[in-house]
């Protein structure tokens, strides 16, 4: 049982069943200030957990608390403290960006200038005069994210905020969120199913697998490397000598070897490394 208090998010033995499928199975955690990442593959229950945390869905078992409020019982009171960006937030008003920003700031009490500032940071201020239909999915996501980040709430819950954004802007998103978290001293809970830069900024990483939070680990903890190379088998054989946990999964090498060791081994064997990413060790379990 997790003890709850008024300055954090608590999830006590939360379960959720869809027909016969148990999506969440006694999920239990508590979150404090900083950036918290919830990772998991598609269909692992990330969005469902967010819906329960925000009082949109009722858990079949267990309880949830956001800053001392039960979001199912006192939805409005709890959600006044939360900026919740849905995976697919709807456009407000008719389809123009300017109008959407106007409606959003009217409802949430944020300034339109603040939203425009974030749009400028994300490099999408040029869309202001455009209609939503003319934007790409990535641009839409950035406009929406600008709106939600402009809120001054103690809790931000963002459901896959960068899933359609290009690599360059993902880095910018990570940096902006890091700065926002630092400046506002807020709790950020962000879901993602991809290896991205958000992981490098996080204070805590949670993995949702088989309906349970299977592992938690801070970004500063143990890391794992994922490589795609011109000869995965040869490189795995080389790394296995010193790092027995090295394996190949889905066309990539997973290893606890550091980037220096990986590059050294690849260079010695004239193997080209196509991509390299360092992830928290906890995330390895998703892909194995």
């Amino acid at each position, binding site marked *: 049982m997790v003890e709850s208090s008024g300055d954090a998010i608590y999830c006590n033995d939360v379960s959720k069943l*869809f027909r016969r499928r148990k999506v969440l199975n006694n999920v239990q955690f508590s979150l404090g200030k900083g950036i918290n990442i919830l990772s998991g593959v598609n269909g692992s229950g990330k*969005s*469902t957990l967010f*819906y329960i945390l*925000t009082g*949109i*869905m*009722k858990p079949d078992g267990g309880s949830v608390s956001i800053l001392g409020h039960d979001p199912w019982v006192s*939805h*409005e009171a*709890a*959600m*006044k403290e*939360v900026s*919740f960006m*849905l995976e*697919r*937030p*709807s456009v*407000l*008003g*008719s389809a123009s960006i300017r109008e959407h920003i106007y*409606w959003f700031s*009217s*409802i*949430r009490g944020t300034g339109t200038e603040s939203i425009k500032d974030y749009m400028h940071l994300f490099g999408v201020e040029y869309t202001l005069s455009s209609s939503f239909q003319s934007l790409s999915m990535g641009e839409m996501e950035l406009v929406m994210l600008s709106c939600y980040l402009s809120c001054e709430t103690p809790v931000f819950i963002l459901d896959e905020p960068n899933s359609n954004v290009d690599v360059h802007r993902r880095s910018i998103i990570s940096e902006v969120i890091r700065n926002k978290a630092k400046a506002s001293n807020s709790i950020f809970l962000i879901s993602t199913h991809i290896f991205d830069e958000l992981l490098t900024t996080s204070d805590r990483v949670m993995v949702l697998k088989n309906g349970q939070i299977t592992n938690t680990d801070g970004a500063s903890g143990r890391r794992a490397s994922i490589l795609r190379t011109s000869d995965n088998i040869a490189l795995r054989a080389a790394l296995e000598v010193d790092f027995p946990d090295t394996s190949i999964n889905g066309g990539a090498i997973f290893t606890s070897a550091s980037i220096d060791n990986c590059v050294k081994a690849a260079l010695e064997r004239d193997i080209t490394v196509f991509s390299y990413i360092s992830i928290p060790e906890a995330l390895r379990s998703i892909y194995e």
Partner: protein
Amino acid sequence: MNKRVLLSLIAGDLDPFFSVEITILFGVMIANYSMIGLLEIQPGQTQEGVVSFAISLFKAAYVPFILALTLVIYSMARTLEDGRFLTYISFPYSVRKVTSYMFTYSAIYPGVLLAAAIAVDSWAFSFSTWPLVPAVLIFYITCFSILFESMGLFLATLTRSPVLAGGILGSLYIFIIPTTIHKNIKSALMYAIAGPNFLKARVSSNSLYIYGGIFEVIMGIALLLLSFEIIRRRNLRPVGR
């Protein structure tokens, strides 16, 4: 949180098919029809003649009115299911508040516009009894709109399909009830279900109009409360996810 903003957004959401314009069209159509009717009304017309004229006005507007109500139900069901509803309640507004606003808007909006069109029409053509006719029509239209939209909301939450919810009610009131309605309505329940089709039938007592209207409102509120409960118990994930 700003309730006026929420109502404005809901109004925009429920009018993607330009039902304002459709309703204005009703007004024009009614005006045309009443011009024809006016020619038939001679000085010294009896109360019965005025009522039959009002009935003919209403009959002319019946199918477009049902279509407008059906389109509003379609939009309401779509808002519930495409994730927009979730966006509203994440802002945060309570499920009950958003649903109530949607219901109030959808029940009042087409009815008020249609009744206003008839009222202006009646006034413009200088009926001696003009305040009576619009007042009675507003009462009938509002009561029926409340029942119709609550049935729509109930079906929308139950079937989770805009097409089914709108289609069932639209075809029921355009094709089935007008052709199967009894010629003699003897109970308030029958009147309430028949809606504006009571104009085709001979009602046995004037008090049935009032009781029927009240019955429509009571049934409407009961269905609305039932819809709240369904929404609370069902998971609000957008369909298709």
